[in-house]
């Protein structure tokens, strides 16, 4: 391989730029001191303990998990059949449908949030929790469609025909062949959706209310008043979870298949 000093330097800078602040936060989380300060004063796990014992955080964590789980299931329930219909079906206007279900990526989340707030919470009196789930599900559908579609595109379209030829009816063929073949893709879509919902701020900001708030929003509120390493500890926990999910996703299907065209 040829050496390109300029490129190497730029890459190093880019990594430093992206990873530097994150690593600082992680370092601060293990601090023994009382303020967010670098280098950390001593080493301890006390801020993790404090984070996990604070009710506002644990309750927000509960809400986040609930919302992320519900929204992921909803998104998969809509997204997987959509991906199947778009890729395998002979639907008229399937390109339009595909574009439509990818559109939440483009529409500003605050706009989506405001619309949902008006229509669902104010208009239909849906609870904050319900609205959060529905709102997040909308955001997640593109991921569900895209990831499932990627694994569908890799599968041999003749598999279902082979199953039918061997005596399986359409329903049996779907559950014995199509679904198991898609399972890793669906699992990746689920993990990716879960983490996307879990980390979401803009949409949640508009849809959370007293008593129902998600962890990132709670963290945001917390740093408005306090400046101790608790937030760093929570961030580190969030980061660990996200990285774990990303690694699993990469193992199962590969990111290039998810985001590549």
């Amino acid at each position, binding site marked *: 391989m040829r050496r390109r000093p300029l490129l190497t330097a730029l890459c190093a800078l880019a990594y430093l730029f992206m990873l530097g602040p994150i690593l600082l936060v992680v370092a601060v989380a293990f601090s023994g001191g009382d303020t967010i300060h670098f280098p950390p004063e001593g080493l301890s796990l006390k801020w993790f303990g404090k984070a996990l014992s604070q009710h506002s955080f644990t309750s927000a964590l509960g809400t986040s998990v609930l919302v992320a789980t519900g929204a992921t299931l909803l998104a998969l329930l809509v997204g997987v059949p959509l991906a199947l219909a778009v890729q395998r079906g002979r639907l008229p206007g399937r390109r339009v449908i595909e574009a439509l279900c990818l559109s939440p990526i483009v529409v500003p989340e605050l706009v989506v949030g405001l619309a949902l707030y008006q229509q669902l919470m104010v208009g239909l009196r849906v609870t904050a929790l319900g609205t959060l789930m529905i709102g997040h599900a909308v955001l997640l559908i593109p991921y569900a469609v895209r990831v499932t579609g990627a694994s569908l595109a890799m*599968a*041999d379209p*003749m*598999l279902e*025909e*082979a*199953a*039918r*030829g*061997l*005596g*399986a*009816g359409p329903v*049996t*063929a779907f559950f*014995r*062949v199509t679904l*198991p*073949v898609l*399972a890793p893709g669906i699992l990746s879509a689920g993990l990716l959706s879960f983490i996307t919902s879990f980390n979401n701020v803009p949409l949640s900001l508009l849809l959370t209310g007293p008593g129902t708030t998600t962890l990132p929003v709670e963290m945001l509120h917390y740093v408005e008043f306090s400046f101790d390493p608790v937030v760093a500890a929570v961030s580190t926990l969030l980061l660990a979870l996200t990285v774990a999910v990303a690694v699993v996703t990469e193992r199962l299907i590969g990111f290039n298949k998810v985001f590549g065209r």
Partner: protein
Amino acid sequence: MVNPVELDGVTREFGGVTAVQDLDLTVPEGKFTALLGPSGCGKTTTLRMIAGYLAPTRGRILLDGAEATRLPPERRNLGMVFQSYALFPHLTVAKNVAFGLRMRKAGREETRRRVGEALELVGLSHLAERRPRELSGGQQQRVALARAIVIRPSVLLLDEPLSNLDARLRVQMRQELLNVQRETGVTAVLVTHDQDEALELADLMVILRDGRLEQLGHPRDVFPAPASRFVAEFLGYENFLTVPGHGPVTIRPEYVRVLAAGEEPPGGTLLSGTAARVTYRGTDCLVAVRAGDQTVLGTTAAEIRPGDEVRVLLPGDRLIHLPENAPVPATAGDTR
């Protein structure tokens, strides 16, 4: 006797395009039938209609004498080997082969025994617990074959099963395919665009052109007597000549003798011309001779160089007469 497959005036249209037109075909029991033709001739469409993946636009399909035109594939009891093999990637080799038996609710003991026999037949018993992706192309092909025959289908359907293999393996697998068919006595229908494959395997060769039946018969009857220029070209004939006193004819280069100047002709039709191209082939030379406005391919053992004045001997008993009014396509591969 009941025929395993009967097509009665079967037509299939896609939009405005007719892929198969008014096809009548009877597949003989226990024999190897090959549907042969260039791409776009309707052979795969025909196979997919027999399998039940496509419904005919018009006409009837009978399986074992019973009306089956609208029967879904899972109720036809046919075994299909796909071009891509279509092995289930999430199942082991043994479970792939067992799939059809499970769908038929065969008992555990019977399933185990029959899967074992099928894998034995294709020589893959030692790979039963592997996944398809761990196998070579030839091995996957064998699994697909075992999966199709284990259900004891009334007909084994083969959709270009050897086209994804390299040339050497392809020739070897042909023989194995034939062995399996002979050993099980299953009725087989093969779709192929490879005339050598059809000649070697088929008891009945069905040549299709633009969705219509062009010629049908045993390879030993069809090969020496192509009914049209299309069939002749498809079977690899290269000489298409108009010979005085014979009209349009074809003849294999092996039977055409190219005589050097001074060589004594033993009798037959003679054409004079110039050697245009000489290809050494070990035992003899293939010579392209420019005779008037025609080019004749022939062989010679004599020393002939490009540019030599030569004569071409066409033995009368080797000339195959092609019907005068048959439509003549430009080349066998270009029929659309």
